[in-house]
């Protein structure tokens, strides 16, 4: 994979993201990734809390009104995450925890999509487990994401 990593690392976009001293480069991308996380995980956490019995005044199906906010967060993080990956492909892709994070995100996203599609069909025990699944997958994604800064073996291939 090293030739691929080196090719990405030498691209103009990778160099700019990694080395530009502009606040609009790496700092802005990291900030966007944190804001996107807050929106996406925040909405998922609110849905999970509701499914687990919090805020009983809110009709569960009405939580769908905020799904759009989560999708904005997902979109922001897909783009910002891709830019972070282009900046340091070796750092992420040689770290097993990166794949753990992606798996948590994939599970969290699937559960979120399922919740939006057919919330009403579930019994309350199922809702409890769905709420727990949302909290575990998004909490896991956050922890794995944070660990990426501490666990990488190689920074760059070049």
């Amino acid at each position, binding site marked *: 994979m090293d030739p691929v990593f080196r090719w990405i690392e030498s691209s103009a976009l990778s160099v700019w993201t990694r080395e530009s001293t502009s606040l609009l480069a790496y700092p802005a991308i990291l900030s966007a990734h944190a804001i996107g996380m807050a929106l996406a995980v925040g909405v998922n956490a609110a849905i999970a809390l509701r499914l687990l019995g919090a805020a009983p005044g809110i009709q569960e199906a009405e939580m769908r009104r905020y799904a759009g906010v989560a999708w904005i967060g997902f979109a922001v993080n897909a783009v910002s995450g891709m830019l972070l990956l282009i900046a340091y492909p070796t750092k992420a892709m040689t770290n097993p925890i990166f794949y753990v994070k992606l798996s948590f995100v994939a599970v969290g996203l699937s559960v979120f999509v399922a919740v939006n599609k057919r919330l009403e069909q579930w019994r309350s025990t199922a809702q409890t487990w769905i709420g727990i699944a949302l909290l575990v997958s998004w909490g896991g994604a956050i922890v794995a994401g944070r*660990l990426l800064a501490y666990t990488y073996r190689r920074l760059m291939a070049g």
Partner: protein
Amino acid sequence: MWLVSIFASVKPIARLMHTAWGWPVAESLHFIGLSLLIGTVGLFDLRLLGVGRRIPIAAMHQLIPWGLAGFSINAVSGIAFLLAEPDQYVYNPSFHAKVLFIAAAGLNALTFYLTVYRKVAANGAPAEAPPAAKAMAAASLSLWIGVIIAGRLLTFYRPFPCQPPEPGFLATCIPGFHANWK
């Protein structure tokens, strides 16, 4: 600065934070707490601004205690960072901005509860919040996003250039970045 020496004198927290797991665990909690805060306080703000109008404002407000829980997690983990590496924060302009934004968000929330809250969250209150409540909701959202940005920028305004590749928490330094960062 006297603040730094006071913070630095709290040795047990610093020792705990400098173990292999101290910093990553506290950071993970800090990100989980912030998601909880935005997912509850932020959604309540959006509700006041008119998103999800069919949900009574009072019902949406039932999420707020979870936002307070998120804030508490972040106050505790944030103070742990501060006590462990005081000079990385006390002299950091991004940290000053972050504290100011948090204080402003707090004042904004206090104003909300002292003024429009009772009317807005009463039983049978209209679905549409008054303009004053909307203004405070918009301020709250902007200020918390400002807090996140200032928090994320802390790394780039560290008073001392960090020397990658240092082990542990300084691994968050972005190599090659600080060399030309002015």
